[in-house]
């Protein structure tokens, strides 16, 4: 049986089981864990609202992250500005297909997939969808795994800045796109952490109790 049927909550930090049966509203009631003192909720507080808000914020930042330049390379020959997309094209044209692929996946595909998956999960829970729970569970685990890997581009920019620093003429500066991209990564990570996966398995209007 499930914890929510018996009004049992579990502490996210120390996994202690707690009895919530005396609380009236099991949505926002919380108690302090007797073992570790953390706040324990039956379900994460305002999970859907926070998760959707963070995903929308990250979508808004995703647009300037791709439009503005990630870094500006100042050389004697002038200044070259690279966005994520132009960097990928550069790698393709110069023959480094593997790196182009890595950056394409990590910086363009991964954040986009994450946003789509999180929106889908939030929407399906909101509508009380009963089917394909196992699949949605796996999607959520995928989202949690891949989230941090979009930081690759940010780190590449910071390493390049540190390495290409010869005198006043040859240097690299970070562009606005890098900061927006960083915000996208952080916001999608927070959105995934705000979403409570247990909601996938909660009731809804199911006619049959069928676990897929």
């Amino acid at each position: 049986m499930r914890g929510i049927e018996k009004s049992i909550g579990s502490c996210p930090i120390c996994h202690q089981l707690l009895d919530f049966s005396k609380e009236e509203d099991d949505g926002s009631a919380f108690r302090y864990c007797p073992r570790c003192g953390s706040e324990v909720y039956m379900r994460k507080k305002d999970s859907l609202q926070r998760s959707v808000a963070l995903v929308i914020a990250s979508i808004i930042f995703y647009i300037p992250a791709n439009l503005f330049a990630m870094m500006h390379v100042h050389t004697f020959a002038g200044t070259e500005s690279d966005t994520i997309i132009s960097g990928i094209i550069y790698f393709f044209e110069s023959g480094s297909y593997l790196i182009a692929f890595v950056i394409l996946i990590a910086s363009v595909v991964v954040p986009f997939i994450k946003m789509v998956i999180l929106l889908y999960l939030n929407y399906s829970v909101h509508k009380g969808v009963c089917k394909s729970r196992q699949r949605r569970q796996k999607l959520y685990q995928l989202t949690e795994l891949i989230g941090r890997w979009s930081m690759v581009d940010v780190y590449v920019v910071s390493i390049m800045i540190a390495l290409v620093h010869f005198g006043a003429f040859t240097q690299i500066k970070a562009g606005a796109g890098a900061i927006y991209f960083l915000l996208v990564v952080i916001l999608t990570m927070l959105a995934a952490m705000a979403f409570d996966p247990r909601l996938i398995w909660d009731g809804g209007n199911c006619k049959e109790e069928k676990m897929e």
Partner: protein
Amino acid sequence: MGKRYICCHKCDEISEIPYPPRKGRYKCPNCGHTLFRNYPGMIEKLYAMSIASFILFILANYYPILTFSVIGKESSANFATSIEYLYLDGDYIMAIAVFMTTILVPFVYITLSMVLFGLLYHGKRALFMIPLIKILEEIRPWGMLDVFMVGTLVSIVKLVKMGDIHTGISFWAFVILIPILAYSHMIFDPHPVWDMIEESDGKKRR
């Protein structure tokens, strides 16, 4: 006590686990999420791993990771230098983010796990371990050293056409550090640690 109950964090299903637990990995019957790992020697392995990580992390930060030379001029990069340049160029947000995810969080994580598992290994049980392990669990997602490694490799590919790249001792320390950290994350299970902390609480009550 022959049994213990665990509530799955992913799907809220309550499962029974024999207590003391048999060796092996316990999965939630509903969603397949790993609930509990019981393999011998976890504390010893994590203690050894965290000491190794600590030494490697100090090494990786002290020496430059990459050295780049073009037409005789040379510059070197490290975790700290990249943050320094970001800060000097005025990109405070990026500097803080890179600092937190590559230096602060990993350092705190490695040091705290070294302290925690060292104390547990040497038989000490204490209540102040509770905030220790809480911090460990909460900051874990924000340590991104493995992503930094991939970033370093991408930078190498980018710059190898423009000049000479040399990988310093820090690079190799870093290369060894990543699998050690990954292995520590893999074998870590907080349940036995919480049991040990509770023991100390029981002793104090008597």
